[in-house]
C-alpha cells in the first residue's frame, strides 16, 4: 500500500486546490458577516452555469468563462444577500444561517426551473495524464487539467491576497473582519464592506463551482456535492481565516484520499468531520485561528 502514497498525495493535493477556492469564499463571508453561509452551494452551481453559458453558448475560452463564473456568482451573491439575508442579521447568526439554507434551496430550484436536471459539459478537450517517474517512489500520474485548475485557483487566491493586503478597500475589509466595532468608529461603511465580502465570497464560490463542474458535470446539484467538504475545510483551517481555508482544503483533500487505505471509499465524507474533531480537540479555533484574513 505504501507504494500508492505518492499518488494518493498528488490526488489529494489536486482535490485540495479545487476545494480551496470555494472554501476561501465561504470563510471570507464568515470573516466579515459572522455566519456560516449555506448559500455557497447554490452560488457554486450558479457559477458553473454562468461558465457553461459563456463557454458553450457564447463559445468563449475556459479562462474567460471562469471569469464570467466569478462575476455572475458574485453579483448574485450581492443581490441575494440584499434581498433575503441582510435584514436578518440583527436576529443572530443562526437565523441568518438557516435563512441561507432556505436561500440555497430557492436558488438551486430556480436553476432547475430554467435548465432542468440534465447534465451539461463544457466544450473542453479532456487531456491524458502526464506520467512522472519518481524513481524509488514509483510512477505517478498527474492530470494536466487538474494542474491548470490548480494554477487558476492559485491565481485567484493570489489576487485576493494582493487585494486584501495592498488596496485601501481590502484593508477596510480586514479591519471590519478583525473588529467591526472599531472599524465602524473609524467610519468604515459596514454595508459596503458586507457587499464586497459577498461579491468576493460568492464569486469565488462560483469560480470554484465551475472548476468542480469541469471535472464532473454542470447540473443543479453541482455545488451541493462539495458543500460539506467546503465547510470541513474552512472549519479545520479556522473559520474566517483565508490561509486557514487553503490549509484546511489540503488537509481535507489529502485526508479523503488517504482514508482509502484504512476505510471503505463510502466513508470518505466522514473524513472531513473526523479531521474537524481531531483538529478542534487540540485547537478549538482551527489550525490557523481566526485573525489571519
Amino acid at each position: 500500500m505504501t507504494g500508492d502514497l505518492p499518488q494518493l498525495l498528488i490526488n489529494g493535493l489536486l482535490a485540495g486546490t479545487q476545494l480551496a477556492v470555494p472554501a476561501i469564499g465561504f470563510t471570507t463571508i464568515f470573516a466579515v458577516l459572522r455566519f456560516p453561509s449555506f448559500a455557497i452551494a447554490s452560488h457554486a452551481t450558479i457559477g458553473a452555469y454562468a461558465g457553461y453559458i459563456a463557454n458553450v453558448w457564447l463559445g468563449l475560452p475556459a479562462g474567460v468563462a471562469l471569469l464570467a463564473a466569478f462575476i455572475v456568482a458574485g453579483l448574485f451573491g450581492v443581490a441575494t444577500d440584499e434581498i433575503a439575508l441582510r435584514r436578518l442579521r440583527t436576529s443572530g447568526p443562526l437565523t441568518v444561517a438557516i435563512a441561507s439554507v432556505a436561500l440555497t434551496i430557492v436558488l438551486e430550484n430556480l436553476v432547475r426551473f430554467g435548465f432542468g436536471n440534465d447534465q451539461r459539459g463544457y466544450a473542453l478537450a479532456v487531456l491524458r495524464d502526464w506520467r512522472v517517474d519518481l524513481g524509488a517512489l514509483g510512477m505517478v500520474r498527474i492530470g494536466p487539467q487538474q494542474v491548470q485548475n490548480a494554477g487558476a485557483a492559485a491565481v485567484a487566491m493570489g489576487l485576493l491576497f494582493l487585494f486584501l493586503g495592498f488596496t485601501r478597500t481590502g484593508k477596510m475589509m480586514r479591519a471590519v473582519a478583525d473588529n467591526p466595532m472599531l472599524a465602524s468608529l473609524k467610519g468604515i461603511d459596514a454595508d459596503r464592506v458586507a457587499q464586497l465580502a459577498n461579491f468576493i465570497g460568492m464569486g469565488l464560490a462560483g469560480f470554484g463551482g465551475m472548476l468542480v463542474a469541469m471535472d464532473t458535470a454542470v447540473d443543479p446539484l453541482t455545488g451541493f456535492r462539495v458543500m460539506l467538504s467546503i465547510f470541513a475545510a474552512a472549519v479545520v483551517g479556522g473559520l474566517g481565516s483565508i490561509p486557514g481555508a487553503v490549509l484546511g482544503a489540503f488537509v481535507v483533500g489529502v485526508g479523503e484520499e488517504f482514508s482509502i487505505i484504512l476505510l471503505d471509499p463510502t466513508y470518505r465524507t466522514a473524513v472531513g468531520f473526523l479531521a474537524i474533531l481531531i483538529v478542534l480537540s487540540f485547537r478549538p479555533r482551527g489550525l490557523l485561528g481566526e485573525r489571519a484574513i
Partner: protein
Amino acid sequence: MENYLLAMAVFAGCTALMALGLNVIFGLAGMINLGLVGFFAIGAYASALLTVKLHLPLVLAWPAAIFAAAACGVAVALITARLRGDYLAIVTLGFSEVIRLVASNEIWLTNGTDGISAIPAPGRGVLSPLLFNLQFVVIVWIAVGVAALLIARLSAAPFGRVLRAIREDDVIASVAGKRVLRFKLQAFAIGAGLMGLAGALYAHFNAYIAPDSFQPLVTIYVVLALTAGGTGTMRGAVLGAVLVVALTEGTRFLGGVVPGLAPVQIAALREAIIGVVLILVLTYRPGGIIPETSRTHRLETS
C-alpha cells in the same frame, strides 16, 4: 383525504417532538445544533432493530430508543463542549451525516441502503388504515402533550432558569457557581432523547426506514419549525411544526394551479416556494409567531 390528513398529523407530531427537543438544547440552553436528524435516526434505528431483530415489545423498544439517542446526545455534548456556536453548527451537522454514513455502510447491523422494512406496529394489517393512522395520531400527540408539559415545568423550575442563564452568558453562570457543563449535558440528553422518541414513533408508523430518510433537510425543517413558531416557548415549537408540515405538504397541491409547466418545473417551483416562505417568516416574525415573553433581551448566539 382523512387518511392523508391523519398521516400528516403524525408527521407533524414527530416534527413537534423534535422541535420541543431543540427547544431544550437551543431555546433554553442556547446551544446550536444542526445534527438533530442524527438523534432522530438513532432513535428510529434503535427501536426498529430491537423490535425487528430481537423481537422486543414496543414498551421496551421505545424507552431504549430514547435512551440511545440521549446517550449519543451526551457524547456529542461532551465532544463539542468547548466549541463556539458557529463551529457547533457545522460539527453537529457533520455528526448527523456520519450517522447516515454508518447506517449506509454497516450492513451487518442496519441492512445498509436497503433499509429496514416491515417494522412492526400495533394493529398494522388488522385495523383499517384510517383507524391505524388515528391510533398513531393519538399516541404521537399524547407524547407531544406530555413532553410540552414536562419541558414547560422544567423551564419554569430552577433548572430552566440556570439554562437560560447559561444561554445568556455561560461565564457569569459558572462564576455564579453553576456547574455549566453538567447542565449542558442534561439539556442535550433531554433534547436528544425527545428526538430519539420522535424517530422511534416515525419508524413504527412508516414501517420502513433507510439512510436516505435522514437527510439534513429534516434538521432544517425542525429548526425552522422552532424559529418560526417561537424559540423558547412550547406552544411556538408545536405550532411551528404544524406550520412547516402544512407548508411542505400544502405546496404539493400547487401543481394543478399553474398551467403549462413541465413536472420538473412544478417540482422546482414547489421547493422554491417553500424556501421563499421560510425566508419571509424569518424576516417578518424574527421572534417567531409566539415569541418568548419572559426573556430579558434578544437571543444572541455568537
